């Protein structure tokens, strides 16, 4: 069987793009999620524009924008293909996850903030010590789910010439059409095995979320 080692050559790209774009997405999620709760109207509005644009349009088109359109329009290269893939996926899922961050913070029971005020905490201490730790617990399952989605979206980077597992599969298929079923079967299994720890982490997250957060 030539297929498994061939496809496995793409694992490095799939996994590194997954990790990097997930990290970028988490980072953006917290920045944008907190910005949406800012007292400053301008910050809220600007964040809203980012979130709605990236949630409201297709990830493939965003990827092609960064890869083809922006270099043509502005004459700048955003980085290697790997970076462009990471940035596109990170921006896209960061927008979705920012809503998870925002809604989790809002969902912490108002009594928690009041009790913290009664203990004379500052608004920053209320957020850091009381609200945020509980909100994070509520976020965990959704973060797990979206990370699984990010894994599956990494397959799009084969469209901008990155050598991930799907790319190597396509190559085998184009030279040996009769292997098509086995090639895509192997790729499915690869994605599933990669998703297993994420699925497990999501379960774990749900268990943690169940205890330790007061929701209204």
């Amino acid at each position, binding site marked *: 069987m030539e297929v498994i080692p061939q496809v496995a050559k793409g694992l490095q790209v799939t996994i590194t793009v997954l990790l990097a774009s997930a990290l970028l997405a988490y980072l953006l999620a917290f920045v944008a999620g907190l910005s949406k709760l800012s007292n400053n109207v301008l910050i809220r509005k600007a964040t809203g524009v980012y979130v709605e644009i990236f949630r409201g349009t297709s990830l493939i088109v965003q990827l092609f924008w960064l890869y083809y359109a922006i270099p043509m329009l502005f004459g700048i290269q955003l980085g290697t293909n790997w970076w462009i893939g990471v940035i596109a996926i990170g921006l896209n899922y960061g927008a979705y996850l920012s809503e998870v961050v925002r809604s989790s913070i809002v969902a912490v029971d108002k009594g928690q903030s009041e009790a913290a005020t009664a*203990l004379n905490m500052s608004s920053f201490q209320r957020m850091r010590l009381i609200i945020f730790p509980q909100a994070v617990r509520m976020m965990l399952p959704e973060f797990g789910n979206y990370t699984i989605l990010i894994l599956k979206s990494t397959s799009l980077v084969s469209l901008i010439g990155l050598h991930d597992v799907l790319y190597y599969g396509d190559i085998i298929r184009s030279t040996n059409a009769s292997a098509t079923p086995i090639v895509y079967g192997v790729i499915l299994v690869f994605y599933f095995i990669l998703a297993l720890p994420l699925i497990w982490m999501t379960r774990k997250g749900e268990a943690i979320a169940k*205890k330790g957060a007061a929701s209204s």
Partner: protein
Amino acid sequence: MTEPIVQYRDVYKSFGDVKVLKGINLDIHAGEKVAVIGPSGSGKTTIIRMLMTLEEPTSGDIIVSGENLWKMEKNGKEVRANEKHLRKVRGDIGMVFQHFNLFPHMTILENCMTAPIHVKKEDKHEVRERAIQMLERVGLGDKIDNYPSQLSGGQKQRVAMARAVVMRPKIMLFDEVTSALDPELVGEVLEVIRDLAQHEDMAMVLVTHEMDFALDIADKVLFLDEGVIAEQGSARDVIEHSQNERLQSFLSRFRA
């Protein structure tokens, strides 16, 4: 008599078009135990929530230890208090809530330690000892490493009281602290309040429906009706000698 520790001066509070408090004037002295009674919706809870800075008065002043709680001086002008001012003035006030509001992500002991350590910057070991002592005093010495979700309502409320007392407030506010409890758990919470009232020299303001209990421990009783203090005085004066018809009919509902 010494200067009151808290003074309400002509305090009004509206929520939208609803006028909840219509001119509250009230003095609370150091160490005084005050019970606030009255029908639902009369504004009892709002009175203490304004003192805890959870609601801002629509007009009027609340003076705490000589400082205006909701107003401050800026460039010689009186302006709305900012957070720094609120924190400075409310530092001696603590509160216990109807729904406990324990922090569910912390153990019982951590619930009691977090504010003294982070807000008052006190020594961790000293705070820990004080918190354990306080939890033992409310009968929960064997639960310090449990999480709030593992406790009964009565136990939660006792933790909430310990958490507030560890901050050493000069004024403690109790907002219907037994209303959310099963009847058989009310007694253990009242026991703790009685203990605090007898052995701590802090002022206490109790908003409550536990009429007999309130009248028993209070130095002063306020009867709040339709947003004003309709009657105030010692428990005996208010109960036995008041001519106020609405008060009498309110009290009669608590007597079988």
